[in-house]
């Protein structure tokens, strides 16, 4: 790998971490449990790496590991987004207040 690639990835990591700190700090404390299940679903983006390994079928070993990894990630995506939405639906405002 070219050194430039490494450094550009490191820059992305640094900037994303700053954005992350800033955005998360503003998340309502009411919603910290749904926040955790949401970030959980989002970090299941690991599915993209798993899909390639399961789909390129280079060796049996890698295909098996890739397939398990896809299943694990999809579990997190499905359950993470569904339960976040289920919890958020319960948060309602006091009736009478607009």
């Amino acid at each position, binding site marked *: 790998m070219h050194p430039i690639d490494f450094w550009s990835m490191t820059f992305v990591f640094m900037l994303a971490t700053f954005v992350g700190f800033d955005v998360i700090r503003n998340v309502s404390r009411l*919603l910290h449990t749904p926040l*955790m299940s949401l970030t959980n679903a989002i*970090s299941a*983006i690991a599915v993209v790496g798993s899909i390639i390994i399961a789909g390129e079928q280079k060796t049996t070993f890698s295909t098996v590991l*890739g*397939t398990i990894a896809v299943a694990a990630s999809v579990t997190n995506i499905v*359950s993470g987004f569904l339960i976040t939405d289920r919890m958020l639906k319960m948060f309602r405002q006091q009736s009478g207040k607009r």
Partner: protein
Amino acid sequence: MMENLTQASYLVAAALFVFSLRWMSHPKTARRGVAAGVGGMSLAVFGTLLHPEIIAFHWIAIAVVVGTAVGIPLSRVALTAVPQRTALSHAFGGLAAGLVGTAKYSLWLGEGELTAFRTGAIALEVFLGFLTFTGSLMAAGKLQEVIPTRPITYRGQNFINFGLLVIALFAAVALVIDPTLWALFPVLLALSLTFGVLLILPIGGADMPTVISLLNAYAGLAAVAMGFVLENKVLIIAGALDGSSGLILSIIMCRAMNRSFTNVLFGAFGQVQAGAKGAAEQKPVKSATAQDVADLLEMARDVVVVPGYGLAVAQAQHRAFELYEQLQKRGIRCRFAIHPVAGRMPGHMNVLLAEANVPYDALVEMDEINPDLAQVDVAIVVGANDVVNPAARHDKSSPIYGMPIIDVDKCKTVIANKRTMNPGFAGIDNELYTADNTLMLFGDAKAALGEVVKALASESGMGH
């Protein structure tokens, strides 16, 4: 051409993920955040499926079906079980990262493509991934109470853990220097799996909110390492967002208990503090009946309820809501004061009360309610103990000294509900119960609150 389309879809996906978290800043926009997350994820998966290296889709399809079949029931668990579910999903995230790292190592080893950088990134990914996997399974087991929740400690524990970490580091460095030393790879793998278990063993039930957040951060970092391995920027971004979220939540949890990370990880809190100030002077306890409490509430103008996890254990959330409704009907202000560690994970108590229909504008954080408490007529403490113990403010010998608490002792009257006079979760005496302005309402939280609600309801039927 295809590559451009893939990268463009990753770019938009990354932006949607940032928006998704941004919209979590308020309950009103939060559900839009979920939609943005789903959109980003779909785009990223679509972009990935365009990859020309993918020659067969059947294994992917089978895995998607299996993942969905497991995921749907996991999203329907009771809200008291959400901490376990969350720990379990950290385990899945760690597992995926560890497996992808292992697969990549074996592929690149065969192709002779292992560089020092790649091996280093894989070592980090595999170590974080597998330690998150077993660590989170342990945490889920403790939360589900399949594994004893008390801290399991033995002599030389920290020494053994530290030793394992050093050996793992040596194995990783040796692999980076010579990536073809493949026999070291399973060693690294076994060490990570073991380290995850040993790391969680000494941690007690009271520290679970911090541990879940910390494992959240590890899972995010494992995804970042995977991004470096696969040279995939959307993975780095999503992992960084997850990691920073986990880190912030762990810091909030640590501050809420006045502890440091090292103290949580190596301190084995939650053990019953052996003879922490025996029974000092046994001051008498004043107890009240449900009718007394109802009469007090009738005359109050401002009421605060302080719920702890005991409320959820007794499944008294709905009774708490009925109490709220009764007070609202009379024009009495009623708010719920939520300590950051009131539940078993960050924000847990809010979700439990929201499920029982308590509107979110009645849920108030500790820092926001404390300045108001001197004006509050009645505070009702249900299922909470340490988070309202005034000893945290002044008793230097108390194990919870320095922990920020909800200062209910400053309210005009305190009603504390408890089953018996036994010390609470952390086994610490609570002087609140013997204070002059405290009345004890003994009994199971659900039954006791139910009786108070009944007494209030019957009075309004006769009186007004």
